[in-house]
């Protein structure tokens, strides 16, 4: 199994789904690219493990939030491309506002000093 570098952040429950949906907002792509994209944008802080990525992709597909089809990759190989469905878009909006509310709340509790000084 993978050894995780100490500097990396563990995924919180359910956050991977949100990240996948957000990544696909930019356009259809395949599993490997999704993983790389999340890693790159998070400046290597988030490491997506294949053992979580593929179950998550198939789970989202089963729920109808994303759809899959075989397309040619930019290197000309056949790859399973995922794209966001209408349902997935709605879900993304909902999950996103939920997450934002959650992180705001976390921030308020973790940094009470900020509020007192205000």
């Amino acid at each position, binding site marked *: *199994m993978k050894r995780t570098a100490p500097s990396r952040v563990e995924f919180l429950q359910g956050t991977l789904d949100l990240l996948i949906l957000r990544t696909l907002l930019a356009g259809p792509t395949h*599993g*490997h690219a999704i993983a790389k994209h999340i890693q790159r944008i998070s400046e290597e802080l988030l490491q997506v493990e*294949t053992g979580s990525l593929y179950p998550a992709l198939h789970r989202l597909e089963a729920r109808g939030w994303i759809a899959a089809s075989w397309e040619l990759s930019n290197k000309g190989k056949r790859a399973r491309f995922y794209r966001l469905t209408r349902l997935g878009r709605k879900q993304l909006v909902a999950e996103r506002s939920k997450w934002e509310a959650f992180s705001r709340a976390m921030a308020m509790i973790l940094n009470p000093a900020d509020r007192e000084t205000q």
Partner: protein
Amino acid sequence: MNSFFRKLLWLAQRRDKQAELRRELQFHLEEEAEERQERGLAENEARWAARREFGNVSLVEQATRDEWGWTRLEQLARDALYGLRQIRRNPGFSAIAIATLALGIGGITAMFSAFDVVLIRPLPYADADRLVMIWDDMGKTDVTSRYQPAPAEWVEWRRLNTIFTDLATNQPGDATLSGDGEPEQVPARKVTWTFWSLLGVQPMLGRAFTEDEDIKNVRVVVISNGLWQRRFGCSPSIVGRKILLNDEPYEVIGVMPRGFYFLPSREIDIWMPASFPPWLRTNFTWHDAQIVARLKHGVTLEHARQSMAALSLQVTAKDFRGPHSVFVNPLREEIAGRTQTALILLLWASVALLLIACVNLANLLLSRGVVRGREVAVRAALGAGRGRLVSQFITESLVLAGLGTIAGLVLALPAMRFLETLVPETMSTARLTLDWRVLTFSAAAAIAATLIFGLAPALRESRRSPQDGLREGGRGTAGARSHWFQHSLVIVETALAVMLLTCGGLLLQTFQHLRNTDLGIRSERLLTFETPLFRYRDFDRRVAFVNAELESIRAIPGVIHAGAISRIPLTVTDQATFYLFAGQSGDSIPQQVALFRVVTRDYYPTIGARLREGRFFEISDRRSESPVAIVNETFADRNFPGRSPVGAQLKFGQLDKKGYWYTIVGVVKEIRERGVTEELKPTIYLLHEQTDQWSTNGAHPSGIVVRTAMEPASIISAVRQAIWSVDKNQPVWRVQTLEEIVGRQLSTPTQSTALLGAFAVLALLLASVGLYGVLSYAVTHRTNEIGVRMALGATSREILLSFGKRGLGLTLTGLAIGLALAGIAARSMTALLYGFRPNYLPTVTLVSLILLTVAVLACFIPARRASRVDPVIALRNE
């Protein structure tokens, strides 16, 4: 497409999806390797690095597959297959388990199919739950408290009631159908025009008659589907045709749909307008109508009862017999009759049998659990969770239940053929089938059974800690608690078996009582049939014809006696009259009601009746000014307690008119005129030739009884020829032997006794197997302990007693509980005891003896095995 259907689709494409996933992961690996190669790694090295980065491919595959959502299903299939393998591996155990379940489920399935047809399925009328029948409550009279109402009451009730949407009457009107083809007697009913709209049933061809036609006495009829097929070859042109009924032309205006029936019998072929004559509309003494009514929406049965009782008292306030109340009963109850109680009882009995089967199986599984302890321990040690183990055990039980159900359905089919005869004659003939309702019920029963017998062992096995199970010779199994549990199972099944046995015993006693009832008739080799006499309305012609036909029958070789009576014995409950003794005032009349029968002189010798005192009718009893009568013992005892009625004078019928006084000349020993299972009533017999002065209300001696020297059925055609030689247009119908009549009347008690008896015997068998199983399990389980005890000086006698005592203790506890339950159950089956008060003591004693004998055997075998344990071998077993 929602997620469930998507997953279902994926399930169908399982193989493709698997390959696809593999390609997808392969692509990921290649992409990763390429990326690394671009960063400068050698091809080989890049591929290995990608692999390492990726992790365990098959694990990823597995985790992804889990998301497809059929892991559960696959698990189930695996467990089921494993269950099947277990069944093959232990053929003995499996055969017992499946056979036990098959008995339980087969029994309950067959019973339910009959129950469903008679008591659950909607009757073939619109909104049949709101239909009720109304009867007069003549509590004060001698004949029967429940009496058919008079058409005049229908007129008044219909005018005054506030709770029914409508009421209809239904009167007897059997008729001879002639014209095209042989004359044929057909069962017919006269009904008011309200009958059709009330039941919400219309003819499938043509129409029903109208109010106008009913009131104006227009000769129209609606015929049954059966008659239409049988006699008119399903011709649609029958509507509008004229047919001859009792030699008068009637126009057929409608044909009823197949499957339509109404009381009193499924066999009614003709419905004609009631067309009450004016005098009938105001005469409250002419009781020959059945009245059916439809409750308005929102009117409860209780409300209807109170309201109708009050109305009836008001309507009959001026009746010279005094006002009377009424009974209001749901139509369903009227149609099902006693069968209802029998079916409910038998359904409960089959539930008890299934419960016993389940308890037995639970015990078997618990005992087997010990054998499988190691297997379970290994599974648990390898990480199977408790839930997983329970679901595995339950699945295995389901497999057993499934096989048991299939075997049960195979058993149920012949049982259903037998049960078809339990469907009352008041309903249409029903063929019991394994339709979806019955199959759904059996499936539900099987699942319930699985939970009952599978859950306890599953929970217990899964609770066991792996260490205990894995330890060599691990014998600590479940300790005292499991004994307690298994013991209560044995007690439960013993109690249920005792309950069934006791109820069965009570029914058997009742049945024997009914079988041995003195009919007052020698029933063997007695042929009966009816020759309707509507063509002989004139008294002299009728007497001449009856004498001539009897003479002609007597001439048939093999005929010993022939006689006639106005109602075939054992079949009819009605035809009663008021009577008055010489010197009595009219005040005593309201209570004085007796059945009356008009007979020919040969009737008594033919049926083999016996006299208590006086004489039978003799040749000297001719038409005269001083007619004679014979009464039965009930009549004599009621009116002349401790005295002889011979010589007393009485008159009956229209008492106010000048009539003949009849002199009682004899008392005949009870003849069960009303039916084998019916109560005896005061009865008066008159000689046909002496009934010229009194209009006997159609009581003509149309019923013929013939005593033969050989099998009575063999002379049927000769009898027809003999009658036709006197009058070639004379219909002959309802030909049957007296034994057939008796058999039919006893069919419900016969069948319920046979079925309950069968259930009880099976229950006893299963319960004793259960007892045997638990004890022999205990012996096997405690061989070591027995060895130690014997090594320490216990004698084999002591060991034998200790095991025997435990078995008998369980049996006695079960027996006590079972007898208490039986007491409660017996109270609910009084309708099946036909007024007979069975003696509990012999039944209870017998049941206890049988149970104890069986229990002693079931205990003795394992206990003896225990006492024969060789301590040396037992301890070496360690």
